[in-house]
């Protein structure tokens, strides 16, 4: 049983929510001062970019139930549009990222069109083709994309003087970029959260749960399926633009099939169809590799072996399988279960019709941890408590 029981929408619950958010915000904002060195801050910036990319994938795979193995391409489109506009046409980063999102939205709509007729695994193959084709297209149009050698933009984001950060200090630059990325990511999470809770969001989930009954209930399947693909592609493209903000140098190999698969890995490990799941998913993607590569000397057989870092991929593979068996809801689900041991939020009987309140009370006693989904999934952040 939980140590503390809070009733929904009481003062105590409000205080708990605000405190959890405040703690989460403080942790997120203080990361650069903890991390210190620019490489370390950069790694956390990577986490933010990956989190937004996973967020985009989650829209289409988690909420609308269509497996996409092609999100690397959308991330790549965002990255390339941003770097071309910033590097060759002197756009500012923010307008360039928006342009990238618009273009990716269009491409996403185009790829979403076959999704209307093709379902399930056929769609997985189509999106897989997109992931494979994208790096080849980049190589083909070498004159604008830089081909295999990658592309570099001279303009780098530097902290303006009012921030009090030194624009010649590498650590300060990294911290400045980190805060910018946090801002962009925050906006994206907020937008996607609102989308999921809105009328179109419910339509998308209805299509996932039962396509036919959604159509019968008046959901326009064609409209919403293509739109989901488009929006999800746009979110992915923003993540791509964020990668460019973090480091204005990209190469086609970054946006190949590997990225598409790792995004799926991050999505599953973090938690499918939950928004905060993208954060632990991205943290695992970035730090699991770093940790395992740094500590291969623990196993004597691996010590000094060329390519010993591949053990990270073995662990990702094993982790994926173990999670499907043990924790299908991902890290975020495990986190919620742990939190459920400490804090339990119960519905406020005053806000419910009397009969429903009685039923809720009965089932809470019977099951022990019934939580209203709306509270747990969105209003309390992942790193709270």
């Amino acid at each position, binding site marked *: 049983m939980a140590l503390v029981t809070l009733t929904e929408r009481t003062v105590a619950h409000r205080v708990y929510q605000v405190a959890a958010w405040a703690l989460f915000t403080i942790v997120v904002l203080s990361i650069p001062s903890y991390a210190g060195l620019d490489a370390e801050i950069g790694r956390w910036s990577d986490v933010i970019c990956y989190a937004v990319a996973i967020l985009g994938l989650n829209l289409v795979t988690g909420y609308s139930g269509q497996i996409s193995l092609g999100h690397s391409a959308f991330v790549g489109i965002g990255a390339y549009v941003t770097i071309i506009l910033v590097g060759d046409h002197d756009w500012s980063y923010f307008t360039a990222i928006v342009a990238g999102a618009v273009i990716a939205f269009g491409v996403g709509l185009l790829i979403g069109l076959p999704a209307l007729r093709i379902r399930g695994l056929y769609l997985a193959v189509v999106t897989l083709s997109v992931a494979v084709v994208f790096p080849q297209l980049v190589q083909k149009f070498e004159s604008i994309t830089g081909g295999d050698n990658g592309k570099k933009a001279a303009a780098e984001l530097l902290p303006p003087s009012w921030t009090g950060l030194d624009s010649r200090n590498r650590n300060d630059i990294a911290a400045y970029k980190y805060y910018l990325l946090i801002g962009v990511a925050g906006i994206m999470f907020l937008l996607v959260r609102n989308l999921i809770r809105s009328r179109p969001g419910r339509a998308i989930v209805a299509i996932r749960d039962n396509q036919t009954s959604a159509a019968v209930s008046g959901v326009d399947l064609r409209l919403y399926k293509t739109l989901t693909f488009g929006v999800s592609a746009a979110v992915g493209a923003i993540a791509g633009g964020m990668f460019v903000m973090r480091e204005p140098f990209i190469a086609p190999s970054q946006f190949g099939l590997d990225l598409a698969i790792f995004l799926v890995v991050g999505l599953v490990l973090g938690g499918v169809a939950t928004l905060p799941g993208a954060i632990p998913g991205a943290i695992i993607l970035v730090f699991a590799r770093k940790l395992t590569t740094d500590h291969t000397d623990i196993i004597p057989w691996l010590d000094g072996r060329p390519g010993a870092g591949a053990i990270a991929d073995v662990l990702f593979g094993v982790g994926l*399988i173990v999670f499907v068996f043990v924790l299908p809801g991902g890290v975020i689900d495990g986190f919620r279960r742990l939190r459920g041991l400490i804090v339990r939020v119960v519905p406020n009987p005053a806000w419910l019709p009397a009969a429903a309140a009685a039923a809720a009370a009965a089932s809470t006693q019977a099951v022990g941890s019934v939580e209203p989904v709306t509270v747990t999934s969105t209003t309390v952040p992942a790193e709270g408590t």
Partner: protein
Amino acid sequence: MPTNLSDEISTTISASAVLKGLRKSKYTIWALFGVVIALFSLYAIVTDGFELFFTRLYDGLTNGFIYSAMAIALVLIYKATGVINFAQGSMAMLGTFVAYVLIVEQGVPTLLGILIAMALSALFGAGIERVLIRPFDPTNHLPITIITLGLFLGINAFAGLIWLYDPRAFPTPFPSGADDYFELFGARLRYDRLGIWIMVGLMFVLLTLLLRKTKAGLAFRSVSSSIESSRLVGINVGRTLQFGWALAAAVGTLAGCLIANTTLLEPNFMNRVLIFSFAAATLGGLDSIGGAVVGGLIVALVETMAGGYIDVIGSELAATTALAVIVVVLVVRPNGLYGSKRIERV
């Protein structure tokens, strides 16, 4: 102007009538395909001559049979479990490395080594089915798909750790000397390439016989059409699905061994092939073995011919074109060329 307009209207009407007619008749589509292919071949022979055309044709066919073999393995798993096995290439790669160890390091005769590796792979496939796949509800595809993705990542990286990433030459059971070829239509056809065609053809025939003429094959076909009904008539569903996985793993390893000789053996050598095999299996309809063979040949021929003869495409966009063709086919026929339609009752 008015005449132009009416002309335009009449042409659009006739065009739409033609389209409607095409949609109705499968044979018209095939006839259209035939005409396009004939025109293309004519153009190809006129521009670059006979010999190059047939050289490319043989290359395309070799690749096609290779894609077909992997596509057959994918189709077997799809029929058994209803998912696309993303780990199929990795499993085949592992089997090929086992064959490599047996043949090159232990000195087992090539053909025998391949057969032993196939048997071991079958055991491995059966084990995977038992341990990782059977605990899940076969109608819930997402967890099984994710497990195969996990296997893909894990097995590839694991093989990379053991055998590292240096490419190795893989032996062929067929004569492969510099002079082992004969000329057909002015182009050289090498015996080891011809051997691949024969091996894949033989495998296709044996597999068809196995599925059509044996009791295990009957059970497999029954389970793939309906798990519920099969259970009711007393088929051991788990055992049958396991049989499907074992069969697919063995077929995959054979394909891997044939491919490794044409490329080189290293832990990622199957990834590229796997993607084209996905495309081939999808094109064929995912649940049709014959469709997988046709799909493989089409994908490979589009890849080689379009890459070879159309300058804009070139070798860089050859794969892109092949995949684009598949997307177009899927939009017209969402269940592939030979796939059975799934009708759901609400």
